[in-house]
């Protein structure tokens, strides 16, 4: 009886936890990814090195949406996020000659984006100082990734809790759980070890569990 319960009820619990990672190929995490084959990416890098505008447009088409999402989480609003993406593209254009191919091109581009976001925040160029959960009443309509069973109250509660995490924990949580990067990629982006990325994710999720449990407890007490 217990074995049956474990098989049927608890087995799905780890469906998302045991994510199979291919450290240098994020495309394997998301089968619908638009990341081109490695050879095409090498050609794209070469064309970017030659300063070809169509190559940069292709780069924008491939990585722009994800870059905007990452930037939004780091900057807090769509305007600053777009500014950060623009700044990142400028830095990629200027620094493409220094790309040695030690990491995937997309990882390198996202690393530049993350640094651009931090730079803008440090220079006080962002419009808000706190990263509050995005309400749907922003200037532009924001779509969320389709989910088979969207749980709106839980999402809002989670966004509020994520905003309470420390910066280090929050960034790793967002890059891993929301954007689907591997720990190896996050390590390269944030200049930390893979182990440190795993550790921060664990701490973030433990804190989120604590906050959500407390919220649920408070809500339960408030009920008549």
């Amino acid at each position, binding site marked *: 009886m217990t074995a049956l319960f474990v098989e049927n009820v608890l087995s799905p619990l*780890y469906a998302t936890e045991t994510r199979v990672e291919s450290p240098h190929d994020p495309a394997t995490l998301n089968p619908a990814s638009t990341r081109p084959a490695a050879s095409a990416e090498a050609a794209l890098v070469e064309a970017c090195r030659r300063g070809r*505008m169509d190559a940069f447009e292709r780069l924008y088409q491939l990585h722009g949406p994800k870059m905007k*999402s990452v930037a939004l989480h780091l900057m807090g609003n769509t305007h600053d996020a777009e500014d950060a993406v623009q700044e990142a593209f400028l830095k990629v*254009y200027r620094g493409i000659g220094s790309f040695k191919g030690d990491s995937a091109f997309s990882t390198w581009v996202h690393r530049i984006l993350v640094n651009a976001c931090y730079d803008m925040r440090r220079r006080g160029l962002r419009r808000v100082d706190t990263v509050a959960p995005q309400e749907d009443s922003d200037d532009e309509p924001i779509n969320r990734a389709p989910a088979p069973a969207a749980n709106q109250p839980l999402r809002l509660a989670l966004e509020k809790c994520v905003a309470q995490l420390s910066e280090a924990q929050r960034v790793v949580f967002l890059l891993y759980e929301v954007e689907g990067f591997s720990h190896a990629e996050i390590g390269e982006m944030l200049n930390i070890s893979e182990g440190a990325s795993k550790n921060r994710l664990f701490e973030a999720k433990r804190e989120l569990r604590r906050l959500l449990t407390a919220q649920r407890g408070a809500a339960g007490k408030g009920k008549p």
Partner: protein
Amino acid sequence: MNVTCRDLESILERQEPAELAALKAHAAVCAACREQLALEREISATALQMQRTWESPELWPRIRERLAAEPRPAAPRWNLWSYFSSFSFNWQVAAATAALAVMAVSSYWLMFNTETEGTPTPPKVSRGAEPQPAPPNPARVVVDPQQRLLTEEALKEVERTEADYIKSIDRLSVLAQQKLQQSDSSLMANYREKLLVLDSAIAECRAQLEQNSFNAHLRRELLAIYQMKQATLTDVLQEAP
């Protein structure tokens, strides 16, 4: 493996499959741990909904405008120092030592074995012996007109081989075109895109070579691009229809 409620956090931190399986078995009989595991799963599932997309049709034109105003990125150059720096420190020391040793041996050998043309070293004369003719010096390079002719011939042969190589790639390209045009798969689309980029790079390289046909670096670069194109065309032809 015996798991208790106190092991929950450490097992979640380590993420070892065997421990996780034991924790799942424990959660089947422990409501508190079951709730924590369920929450862990809910967090991961709900996090996916936090990914954001929005339309920003003006963003790319804005970026393009800024990029167009920038000076063209510097062409990557093969830098001996950066190549050397990419090795570990031990290898750098070993390479530097080897280079020094080679230089020292060469200098020593040159110092004691070379003779300048027109000032031959007088042969050593031992007491009571006839003077011996000096042995031929391998370091002395005398340019023979016939040798020069042979070098020019070799260079011409290299150029002929290069032209034949390019012709054979063009023939390969014709063969692959049919396959490239017929298929709508994303793989073939990638190949088409890559070949376009390579052709454009070849055209650009050739245009630069027309301005400076003696630039050996450009010639090497052109050959490398052709080799890349050959590999891509071979891949296309080897793909299943």
